[in-house]
């Protein structure tokens, strides 16, 4: 952008001279150099780790038995083996059917659990945040339920809801709900009293207060929780599948474990990591869209 042409009411025309232009150009070059350096170091680190892993699982190996290797690939996998496993899954398919079917199943469970958990978390968070009596009555129960390791509920859901999707969705909902609930609750409690008073004076009804003041104000808290809770939804879906399913990445991991296929476990993990990174990017997009009014959002450290 040219500084001379941006004469908006807030950006008055700034007088620039050659020295300032040179300074900016130099700074831009320095930034570019640093970006390249960071990329090179990143790739070098990946090569180092994967290379060491591959090398230690190959060096010293004699004959068909892998027991003489420095690191035994039978127990710890091997990058080339993981890659071969991925290729096989893509080309031939998994024991439960085509790979894409497993991914879609897990994603459906995750997204459904995430969506239901978020909506329920917001509703209950706003309700309890606005109603002190209800909050006082429900407080100990919610704290108790939150303190419990809720993953064990997965067993109950598998018994009660069967091997199909609902049991996995239920587990994901339970995991997501509490994260969102506590953030929404806190967000509602933290609403600026002056803003509430102002809206009341301007004529807002209780419903309008919720919609125009309390929800937008709590939104930054709620959105902050979405980053964590999408991860939880994925955990819920995977653990649910692991406990008993007919399809899904969790089942692939369970199958790989059952056949002592370490490479299979790592390959499934790699797929999960890629899904999680994509989801994280989507949540960040959503956040930027919903709170464009915020000056410089206090974002998490980006890597």
């Amino acid at each position: 952008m040219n500084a001379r042409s941006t004469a908006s009411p807030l950006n008055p025309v700034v007088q620039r001279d050659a020295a300032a232009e040179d300074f900016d150009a130099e700074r831009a070059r320095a930034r570019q150099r640093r970006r390249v350096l960071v990329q090179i170091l990143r790739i070098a680190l990946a090569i180092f780790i994967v290379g060491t892993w591959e090398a230690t699982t190959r060096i010293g190996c004699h004959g068909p038995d892998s027991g003489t290797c420095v690191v035994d690939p039978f127990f710890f996998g091997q990058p080339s083996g993981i890659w071969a496993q991925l290729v096989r899954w893509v080309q031939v398919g998994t024991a439960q059917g085509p790979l894409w079917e497993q991914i879609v199943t897990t994603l459906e469970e995750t997204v459904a659990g995430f969506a239901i958990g978020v909506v329920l978390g917001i509703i209950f968070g706003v309700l309890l945040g606005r109603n002190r009596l209800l909050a006082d009555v429900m407080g100990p129960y919610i704290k108790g339920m939150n303190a419990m390791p809720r993953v064990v509920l997965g067993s109950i859901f598998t018994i009660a809801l069967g091997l199909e999707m609902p049991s996995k969705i239920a587990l994901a909902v339970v995991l997501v709900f509490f994260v969102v609930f506590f953030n929404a609750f806190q967000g509602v409690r933290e609403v600026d009293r002056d803003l509430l008073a102002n809206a009341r004076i301007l004529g807002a009804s209780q419903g309008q207060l919720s919609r125009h003041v309390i929800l937008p104000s709590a939104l930054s808290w709620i959105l902050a929780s979405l980053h964590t809770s999408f991860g939880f939804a994925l955990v819920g879906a995977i653990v649910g599948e692991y406990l008993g399913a007919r399809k899904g990445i969790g089942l692939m991991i369970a199958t790989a474990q059952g056949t002592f296929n370490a490479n299979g476990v790592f390959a499934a993990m790699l797929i999960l990591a890629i899904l999680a990174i994509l989801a994280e990017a989507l949540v960040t997009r959503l956040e930027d869209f919903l709170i464009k009014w915020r000056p410089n959002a206090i974002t998490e450290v980006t890597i």
Partner: protein
Amino acid sequence: MTSGTPAIELQGVTKRFVAPTGKSFTALRDLNLTIAAGEFVAVVGPTGCGKSTTLALISGLEAPSVGTVRVFGEPVKSVGRSVGYVFQRDAVFPWKNVLDNVAMGPRFRGVDTGEANTEARQWIQRVGLEGFERYYPHQLSGGMRKRVALAQTLINHPKILLMDEPFSALDVQTRALMENELLDLWSSTGASVVFVTHDLEEAIGMADRVVVITAGPGTIKGTYRVDLPRPRNIAEIRFQPRFIELYEEIWNDLRDEVLVSYERSKHRVAS
């Protein structure tokens, strides 16, 4: 002063708050204050004397513990429709742009969005923010945000305008500009104004009457009629001899209360 029903009437008003420790704390004691329709009254007093509480009672945000508050003869039971309130801190909605912020009042009161926006644009123009309709509050300066707050309040055509140290966060020059603009806007509305401030110059410069409140629990110590002619220029009025006379007279009253309040705050720190 006009005859007939006063715009605001506080009779024997006491307000107690319960502190988180469970002890109650008296903010106002036996306060009597009557304000005529169209009158501009400035309320001055030391920190913590219950100035803001007075506004909260008139607006209906708080109810008195003892006594009655009447607005146009009617006892105040809840937040009234004839009241506008400009807060000390920024109370514009940070997630709404200037246009939406200003249009909020009519929209809350059932006017449809298109009509509310048309009216909002007129008020935005009147407070000198034309061209900033799509900006968010964080993109504006403190003075501009105050203009948004003024437009947001005045669009509801309040018959009673309550202002709680509205300009205290602004720098001196912006402040004088805003004070003049407020007087301009006010002169065409005919609203009664209760203007709380700790700044005596601002109080005398703007008001028809200055009310001094004692160090908390607050009650009326004295009221002074300001007989300076209107229209006034805030930046220059303070050089008039009559202004200086009034300042000395009121300051004599206010000084003791400020000292009492200061001594107490020292003890609070020491204990």
